[in-house]
Structure formats: C-alpha cells, structure tokens
C-alpha cells in the first residue's frame, strides 16, 4: 500500500513537472507552506494543484522566491517557512504601508 501511494505521488509529481507553467513550483511551495512531509499529505497537495486554477506570473515569482529562500535559510529538511528571510524583515525600510 505504501509503495502504491509513493508510486502514485511519483507519477503525479512527474505530471506536474512536465505539465503546465508554474504548477510544479506551486506544488513545492504549498508543500513547504503547509509543512506537507508525508506521502499522504503530498498526494493531497499534488491533486489539489493539478485540479486547481492556472498559475499567474505574479504567483510564479512568489513561489520561486519562497522555495529559494526556504532552501537557502531553512534548508530542505526544515519544513517550516523561513520567516526571517522575508524582505520586510531584511529591510524594514522597504515598504512601510503594507499592513
């Protein structure tokens, strides 16, 4: 059963990787944001991304940046988003009107 789930996830991940613009990075980003680590959690997210709407350029930019920061600051083993890496925290003068 575990192998079947893992293999299903593998196929879905390949479908996302070879599929439409932005979906694979959205999947990776949501796995990090929601701390999805188990096969079951990742399967749920992968299905949600495949069935979900298309990815805009703005969201793609956010996803790519989020994944990059997470892998630089948090490391892939740490499933939590890297809050200290947000641009607001790095540079408080960036934009003070957002909240």
């Amino acid at each position, binding site marked *: 059963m575990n192998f079947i789930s893992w293999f299903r996830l593998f196929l879905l991940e*390949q479908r996302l990787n070879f599929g439409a613009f932005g979906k694979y990075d959205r999947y990776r980003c949501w796995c990090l944001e929601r701390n999805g680590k188990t096969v079951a959690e990742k399967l749920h997210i992968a299905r949600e991304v495949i069935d979900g709407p298309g990815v805009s350029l703005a969201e793609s930019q956010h996803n790519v940046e989020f994944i990059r920061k997470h892998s630089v600051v948090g490391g892939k083993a740490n499933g939590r988003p890297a809050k200290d890496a947000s641009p607001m925290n790095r540079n408080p003068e960036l934009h003070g009107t957002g909240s």
Partner: protein
Amino acid sequence: MKFAEWLALDAMAARRSFARSVGKFQLQTTKPVAILTAFRGERSLSDNRAANAQLANDLQQLNLGFYPVNGMGQEDHQTLFGLVQWVVPSSEESFVVQPRGAMPEQAFEAAIRNLLHNYGQFGAMMKLPSSLQAFLLKADGDPEGKGSEVGARTSNDPYYSQLKSGPRADASMLSPWEIRGELNPVKRAINWWGGRSAMNQPADRSKIGRRFSIRQAEGEA
C-alpha cells in the same frame, strides 16, 4: 491641443519608449506605478482579453493612465537529478498603470489591491516613490521586495516586461533558446510533448519588443 489629446499622445510616447518605461521604476520616480493584468491561467485567450478590456475600462473610471505591455516569465525544470533541464515560458498581456494626476500612494495602492481582488489576481508589481525597492503587492498578504535595480533584460532574468511598440529587442535581451531555437533533441522532445514546439525554432524577432526587468541590486539578495 486639448489636454485629453496631449495625455493620449503622452501615453502613446510612453508605450514606445524603453527609457520612459524603465524610468517609472527607478529610485527617483515621482509617481507610483504598477503592472497588473486580468489574465488567469485557466481561461482561454479570448476570455482573458475580454477580462483585460474590462480592466482597462475600470482603470479609466479610476482616472488611472495605462498602456499595454507583455508580462513574461519562464521557469526552469529538471529531471534525472538535474541531468536534463528545460524551460517553460509563460506570458500575460498586462498594463503599466500610473495615476493621471496627483494621487496619494495609499490611495493608489488601495485601488490596485481592490482591482486585484475584483479580477482574482495573486498580485501586481508595484513601485512607490517612498519605497526603495519595487515589490510584489499581493491581493492578500505582505508585499514582497523584488529589488531596486531596473534595466534591460538579460538572459539571467526569468521575469520581465516586454514593450509592445517601438524598436525591436536587442539580441542581449533574448534567451538563448529564442535566438537559435532549442537544439538538444531531448529538450526538443520535451517541448514538443508539452505543446511548446515553437520553442524548437528561432523566435520571430520582428514580434519581440524591447524588454526590461526589475532585479535585486548588489547587497540586496
């Protein structure tokens, strides 16, 4: 010449001018500026263009000046532990938007955020005179800094804007696959399989306007 005619001429000049488009995102800018679209990935091109026409109408009602550009982006994908890498591009017809007259930054930001909600958008690129960096204004959530440097797009910049009018892009603004077409047979097959066969041929340079991108300056990363 009437004021409205002068405004139309001014907007016409801006949409052709690379320097003016870039200047809107530089540090010494005096007016807020945003790039936004009504395009959504799951809709057809005709539906997206109809939504953009509605957005243009709303922008006029809000007394915001605008001109069209193409928002472009590309994501890098890989498989077999990075042995095979390929590019998936995307584009959205967008608008560069600025207030016609004097408008407080907060009012402009609120108007853009409202439009993002109305058109179901994730976010818009924005630069305010008081902020050092351009940033991604999200419909929900904190803004995300994108950098204070703006200039001609290079092949290292995955996200950029392309002017619709004016002279065509220099070769330095293009990606390698646009200049010569994809040559690697494995990548050609992946492009074909993904419905991107056009990437296997050199791009039609007569259809590519000049491009600019916003990036992080040294020390910002």
